[in-house]
């Protein structure tokens, strides 16, 4: 297996997302960039899981049932979990964006700096 390539892909996606988060001024774009970062993380989780699981199984040949599931599927479960949370987070984030738009008439994140004062 070649987990390195998958990890490089993950790092590239994460960095693109981070760049978007740090540079885009439109709040919706920032949310989208965050989604890209999530995907980078998901890929890393699955890649590592795929890489680690066979070694773990070899080390514990006697393992059965839940123990096997735990060894093999942890990364995948993480992935599904992150997707779920990301969906919820986008829903919440968009709601906040709409609320900000209604309140201030803009979705430019550089304009939303009330905390400074």
């Amino acid at each position, binding site marked *: 297996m070649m987990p390195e390539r998958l990890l490089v892909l993950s790092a590239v996606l994460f960095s693109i997302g*981070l760049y978007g*988060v*740090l*540079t885009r001024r439109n709040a919706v774009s920032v949310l989208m960039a965050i989604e890209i970062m999530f995907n980078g993380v998901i890929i890393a989780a699955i890649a590592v899981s795929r890489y680690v699981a066979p070694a773990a199984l070899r080390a514990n040949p006697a393992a059965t049932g839940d123990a096997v599931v735990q060894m093999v599927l942890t990364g995948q479960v993480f992935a599904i979990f992150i997707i779920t949370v990301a969906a919820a987070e986008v829903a919440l984030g968009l709601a906040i964006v709409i609320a900000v738009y209604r309140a201030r008439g803009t979705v430019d*994140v*550089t304009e*939303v*700096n*009330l*905390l*400074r*004062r």
Partner: protein
Amino acid sequence: MSSIYEPQAWAILFLPLASFVIIALLIRPFLNQRYSRLSGYVTIAAVGAAFILSLLVLKSTLGHEEPIGWVSHPWLTIGDLEIRVGILLDPLTAIMLVVVTGVSLLVQVYSQGYMKGDPGYSRYFAFMSLFTASMLGVVLSSSILQLYVFWEMVGLCSYLLIGFWYHRPAAAAAAKKAFIVTRIGDVGFLLAILYLFLHRDTFLAQGLNPFDITDIWAAALVLPAFAVTWLSLGIFAGAVGKSGQFPLHTWLPDAMEGPTPVSALIHAATMVAAGVFLVARFFPLFQESETAMHTVALIGGFTAVFAATMGLVMYDIKRVMAYSTVSQLGYMMLALGVGAPAVAMFHLFNHAFFKALLFLGAGSVNHATGTFDMRYMGGLRRHMPITYVTMAIGSLSLAGIFPLSGFWSKDEILLEAWRGGGLVNQLVFWMALAGVFLTAFYVSRMMFMTFHGTFRGGAEAEGHGQGAEHPVHLAESPWVMVLPLVVLGVLALGSGYVANPLGDLAGIPAHWFVEFLGGHAEPASLSLAAVSTLVALLGVGLAVLMYQTRTLSPDAVGRALRPARELLSHRYYLDSLYEGVLVGRLFYRGVARFLDWVDREVVDRTGDGVGWLGRNLGRGLAPIQTGQLQAYGVVISLGILAIIGAYLVFGR
């Protein structure tokens, strides 16, 4: 077997305490308007019951060599140390119980008349109950910590009662003075207790409890000599404060600002007796240290003479009495110091009766004349015959004239000092003898100025403020005031015979009192008795010459001895020294000013500095907070990169 049970002994303590609680929580808040007399009756009932129980205790302790000690009750546990509370009942306790409850009972009866119509009537009796209870607690305690708690309660009650008429600035000041000056001595007592705590390992190794009084007696033989000396001196410091010994005597004369029955109680049975009792209580400890014994004897002897000289020139009848108390307490300390605690207690026993009598008599005189200044009295014996006769008994007893009670105990003290041998004992013997002369003189002077000659106008002649409050009505006081005087007069006549120095008499074996307290009685010395009586008669004679027959004019003598008179009437300038130099100059201008500077320049500056730092730091760092989330994100990302980079370069 003892016929007394522990609950009965506790009841002696808790009856007056209950009286305090009932008066303070029930009578004073709810019934004060119409039934304030009730508080007096409750107090008398409680103290009376305690008195009867005390008599039972005394009866059951007769013939017991060993102290009756019930197993004490655990109170607190600190590490491996258990602090216990309980009752220690030995002859000393039994005698003190009877003296305290007996005198207190008479004073309460007297107060019915003296305090009649006072707006603080219930408060007065509440405090008096608490005062009596505290003193009984001191006497009964089996642990030094328990004793200390009651000891401080006695101090508190004296503060409350001396400052009873708190609206008078002099009373408030005197109360504060009494509290603070005695507290100086209490620091020594507290240090002694802490010292015991430090030495707990020595005690525990012996299976002893460092706070248990009987164990402290036992430990006196085990502890190193210097430890015993310091412990004794610490405890003695507490006694010096409470018993008004030099140099902490200044509060006692000022304590006259309280109501007169309070003075009687303080001077006879409670407050000042606590100091003598304390030294007697820890006598087995003192005995092991020659230094401590000599200190006690010298301070006692010096105080006996020193205070008596000041009594010579006072015009306030209660102040004469106050200095007399200080002086008599000096005698008791002296007796303790020469190794005769039983004799000291004998004198305390007699003194309690005749001094209470004298104070209550002074109160009776004040009731009639409205003043305490003897210059405005005179000729009262025709108007108040019972007061006159009883006070004459008390005065002669104080002067140590045969056959009144004071003669017996004073003589025993002189005898013990004389027989003691050694330089210190010789010295204090002569001090005590000088004290006898001075005592006889000032007490006779007081009697002549008050009761003989012609009446000089009382409060109306004195003419400032109080005249309207206390009109002069020259008549005998009401029977509630006279009755205690008569009872005390009989006691002052007869209490000396409990010691019976001469031989078996009236069913009391010779030297009963002294041997009951575990002392060894010296055979009476007729020659010494003759000398002391002669000296006392000389004192009385001089007073007759000066104040009765006026052969020697007091004014002329005063002029002739002007410097001495000035020195005495200014009380050796000690009050000025304490208040002017120590408190005013050293404390206010020195310590207080320094602390003020520290507060202003160090403490306040530190506070200001912290504020300044926060404000300016915030101002300096404020521009960094742009409110731009993305800028923060950049910094966070760069920071994480830096940490990862550092890990890669320097890690592993």
